[in-house]
């Protein structure tokens, strides 16, 4: 490109008819300068490409290394969180264990229910099977002061709450999973332990 640049004014001034044999001497003169001048940018370009490549490679490696560090850090953190989750899950399981539930229920003044009655809905006109009886408080000291409220003619509200509390750890837990009518096809049974909903024991 640069070699042809000085030729243009010549060609332009001498117009078109002159053929190739007139242009040879100027060609020889031009050789040195422009060619060496053209190499520098090329070398610079190659150098720049190499440099940029090198820097990019370096950056990539640094990033990769940084990622490795970050990965390690995050893995560490994830492990810590795993540990914490496991500890919490364990604590929850221990609180959910029947033993712990029963102890807490007792602390609340609950006692196991002595009996269970069911109301049959289909074809039996609400017939009650089983025996519904108020739970008997154990002779243990914490429950000894409270039992009277259920049977004495007090306010309806207090009587209900007391008997509900006494239905015991077992039935309270399983109430969530109750399957009415599991006994037979036609019968539909529902737990009816509460004193308020069932007639006295038969």
């Amino acid at each position: 490109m640069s070699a042809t640049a000085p030729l243009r004014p010549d060609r332009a001034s001498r117009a078109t008819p002159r053929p190739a044999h007139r242009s040879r001497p100027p060609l020889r003169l031009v050789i040195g300068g422009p060619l060496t001048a053209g190499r520098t940018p090329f070398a610079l370009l190659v150098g720049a490409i190499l440099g940029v490549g090198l820097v990019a490679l370096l950056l990539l490696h640094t990033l990769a290394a940084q990622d490795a560090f970050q990965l390690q850090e995050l893995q560490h953190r994830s492990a810590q969180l795993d540990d914490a989750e496991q500890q919490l899950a364990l604590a929850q399981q221990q609180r959910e264990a029947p033993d712990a539930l029963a102890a807490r229920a007792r602390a609340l003044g609950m006692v196991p229910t002595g009996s269970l009655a069911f109301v049959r809905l289909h074809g039996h006109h609400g017939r009650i099977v089983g025996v519904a009886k108020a739970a008997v408080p154990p002779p243990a000291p914490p429950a000894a002061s409270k039992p009277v409220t259920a049977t004495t003619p007090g306010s309806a509200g207090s009587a209900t709450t007391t008997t509900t509390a006494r239905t015991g750890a077992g039935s309270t837990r399983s109430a969530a999973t109750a399957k009415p009518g599991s006994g037979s096809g036609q019968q539909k049974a529902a737990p009816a332990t509460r004193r308020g909903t069932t007639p006295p024991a038969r």
Partner: protein
Amino acid sequence: MPAAPPAPRRPAQRRPPERHPHERRQPERRRPPGGRRPNPQGRLQFILIGCLIVLSLIGGRLVQLQGLDGTAYAKMAEKQRLHTVALTAPRGPILDRDGQPLAETVDARDIYADPSKVVDAAAEAAALGPVLGVPAAGLQSQLEQHTTFVYLARAVTPALATKVMDLKLPSSGQGPLPGIGVLPTTKRIYPAGTLASNVVGFANADGTGLAGLEYSFQQQLAGRNGKRTFETGLSGSPIPDGQDVVQPAVPGSGLQLTIHRDIQWEAQQALTRQVKAVHADSGTVIVMNPTNGQLLALAVAPGFDPNDPGKSPMSAFGDPAVSEVYEPGSVNKVITMSAALQEGIATPTSPYVIPPVLHYAGFPFHDAEVHGTEHLTLTGILAKSSNIGTIEVARKLGAARLYHYLRAFGFGAPTGVKLPGDGTGILPSLGTWTPSTLPTVSFGQGVGVTALQVASVYATIANGGVRVQPNLIAGTVGPNGTVTPAPKPERHRVISARVAGQVRDMLEAVTSNEGTAPLARIPGYRIAGKTGTAQRPVNGGYSGYTSSFVGFGPADAPKLLVEVVLQNPRNGHFGGLVAAPVFHDVMSFALQTLKIPPTGTKPPRAKLHW
């Protein structure tokens, strides 16, 4: 600089053209007067040889390092970079029927010390002691040992390990404590504690099951450990794009049991209470669904704490429900009765005359209570648990037929629950029976059974005569939590449904006011069952009693079976008095928990006398 090397090279390379211009040789010849040899070629050769020697040395070393010792050095280098960590296969959990864990594996940490790197043993021990909860004196002696590795605490919680690593030396305020380190590990824990510990068993710190299902399913639960090999930098972080070979661990598969933990808990509570109250040696409670053979509870007393098995004696680790063999006593009479009914020898109302004493094969046989001559029906014999009446029935039945039914009901064979020590009991083979074997076996002496075998007999009757193999494993739990149901238990008919119904009605008379176990009754429900009061064989003789009660309800559509066995109660011994109350408690709790409604039918009027 750049001009210097070409100068000597040029003469060497372009020697022929340079010889012609004489002017250039002249200045070179002038140099020798300085004292050096005038031969450049010799000098060049000398340098060349020198270079070659050096190069060959380097080359030789290269060959030595790369070729001869190469592999060794490469290995050493690799060893420096390569780290191998064991990938511990997580041990499969053991779950109850609702998926709540009875045994599971959690992450934990081992705390170790490298005593050679410990700076101040006394100060470090003093700092560690309160955190680890052990006396500092013991720690100090551990830190002063001449070794490079010693465990200070094993399988502690990660939180505690973090606390240990946060400790600082009081003198320099420098932390973590020099020479103290933490290793990741796992710990087997039993969140429900003693609940079903006799079934679940326990595994040691190395992950080897030593008792219960942990032992019998060791291979399935343990899985297979793997490893990861990777290149690390100086800091220990993995080199990106480095070698990284993972041989993954194969996680163990878990077990889902048929155990209902609330019922199991109540069974353990009621049993432990009664064992204490009647001063019994031990006891067993089995709760079973007779229709599918699933064991809902398998309680024993005394039990052990699987989280701290070291506190209990070795003898506590078994499961007496399947391994303890005892003479069943009167509960065995139901087999004699079933056989007689099935073989058409008697009906529930067949009349029998019961003398006060019966002489049979040269031995006098008595009933538990002294009585005059009684007129009892077959139902009456069972309800009042008359030994003499049962012998009369067995006499008609004959040894061969009785033996056949004993086997058909599962005596003399393991029950097939996959617990260690699942016993066959002791049923003498028919050929060894002496004339006195028939009468004694007919009412349950002279034959050894396990509690589960007896439970299975009653489950067969409750289930309309079809015996379903008792089972404890509901399925296996894959690593991702999916449950593969266990194969259906084996079932086969032992007695006809009609006979089973007759026996059920007869057993219901046992809990009547006239029967031996009115205490087993549950208001609103129809309950059938049988008491057992057997003498305990001890060292060839008999001493003490085995008191038991096994029953099911509702009697006309059995959904649940509960068996209670108490060994050597010293405060009362009749099964109807010591075992029946436990049955009552466990059965009512289980009926309530599973929301099993009463059938609402009236029990048949049983005819005990004629």
